[in-house]
């Protein structure tokens, strides 16, 4: 389990890795969605502000939009999820990040995020 993971109320997580940040969807959100059949991710190089919609994850049941937990520039997207969205159900959630970003405002943006354990207590 990644120990510096922070989670948003809209069920995205973010953690620091090698000076950049990985953003993904929490296990709780994935469990709620059920079988995931579609993932739409942003263009590399584009910039999104905290709270902005950066992509979509759709399960058999429903579409769920993804919100930036912190502001930043997209430096990488997890391309294998485009072809195999079901990996989100099959693989450990903390390894299946959706996007990697660089961020100058990480420390200012995390005020409303909670650590994973506290997040789990709140949602369950």
């Amino acid at each position, binding site marked *: 389990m990644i120990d510096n993971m922070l989670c948003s109320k809209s069920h995205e997580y973010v953690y620091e890795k090698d000076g950049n940040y990985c953003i993904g969807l929490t296990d709780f959100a994935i469990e709620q969605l*059920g079988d995931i059949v*579609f993932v739409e991710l942003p263009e590399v190089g584009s910039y999104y502000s905290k709270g902005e919609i950066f992509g979509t994850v759709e399960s*058999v049941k429903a579409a769920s939009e993804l919100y930036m937990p912190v502001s930043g520039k997209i430096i990488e997207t997890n391309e294998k999820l485009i072809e195999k969205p079901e990996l989100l159900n099959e693989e450990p959630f903390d390894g299946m990040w959706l996007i990697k970003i660089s961020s100058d405002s990480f420390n200012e943006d995390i005020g409303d995020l909670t650590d994973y354990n506290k997040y789990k207590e709140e949602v369950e």
Partner: protein
Amino acid sequence: MVKRTFLYDEHLKLNAKMVDFAGWEMPVQYHSIIEEHNNVRKNAGIFDVSHMGEIFVSGKESLNFIQYLVPQNIEKLTDGKAMYCQLTNTNGGIVDDLLVYKLKDTNYLLVVNASRVENDYEWIIKNKNSFDVIIENKSDIYSMIAIQGPKASDIIEKAGLIKEEQPKTLCIKETSLFDSKIYISRTGYTGEDGFEIIMKNEDAVKFWNLILKAGEKYNLLPVGLGARDTLRLEAAMSLYGNELNETTTPIEANLSWSVDKNKKENYIGKKVIESQLANGTEKKLIAFKMIERAIARHEYEIMYNNENIGKVTSGGFAPSLGFNIGLGYIKTNKNLKNGDIIQIMVRNKLYNAQITNKNFIIKHNKGN
């Protein structure tokens, strides 16, 4: 108050995820919608459909009365047979879609949608006029379990009803199983062969568990409403509230096959329906498959040459096909036909889709 079927505790024991559907707390999935879906196509699934309604019509004039309620020709029904019908209003709009079973002589059973039971019952009472009939809504005393899939017949045989005694497609039988009286019909909502069993509420748990046991060696699995929806969508079967409503006629809904064009008897909505049969309609239901990678969902706009021509009524991923499909209404004035390309507006972007015939899958629920 949200209602619970008599199988509620069984669903919880099977770790079902429960949701509110048409005023009922129902299982949406037990494990995975896709797995449940695929298992119905490959083996078989058992569904709690106790939320559906059972309205019995009997009495001297029951035939004439039902003839007055539906565009189908019920006179063609012999004892033990079923017909897919709609209750129509004076504008030809669909009050509900249903199966009409002729049990015996003047006794009919109408199996109606959960969301429409009260409404249908009131509608039927309201239109009784001077017909000499008895109308009984027995939805509260009956439960219903569906067993669907290529192994369904084997499972029912293992449960105690040998194949020779099983009803044929679109037929119903009153018989005994597990020492209880039931109605068993060869009908369903998945495009597969299968059965629907109507039993008294107090027998529901027994049936559920004994059928699950009989199905063990055939890989029978419980299936929730999630897969029920993907299965019916692949079979291009309409869902009341999505494809069908009071402002849509059976002709618009591509259900002309269930309208008797030569019916002599009057029925509610006949004038409008006959006029549409002769002159066409302004909108029609189409099926489509997504060409580009996007999922069309209920209420999304359908576009053609940058013009809005309709709306999606149902859409999603089709597990048996591996691509995304949908149903929707479009205006008929563009003369669009199978093979033509339309666009679906998904989150403010247009994605190409192709109009197809409604045979997404090969259906196995016809003739046997």
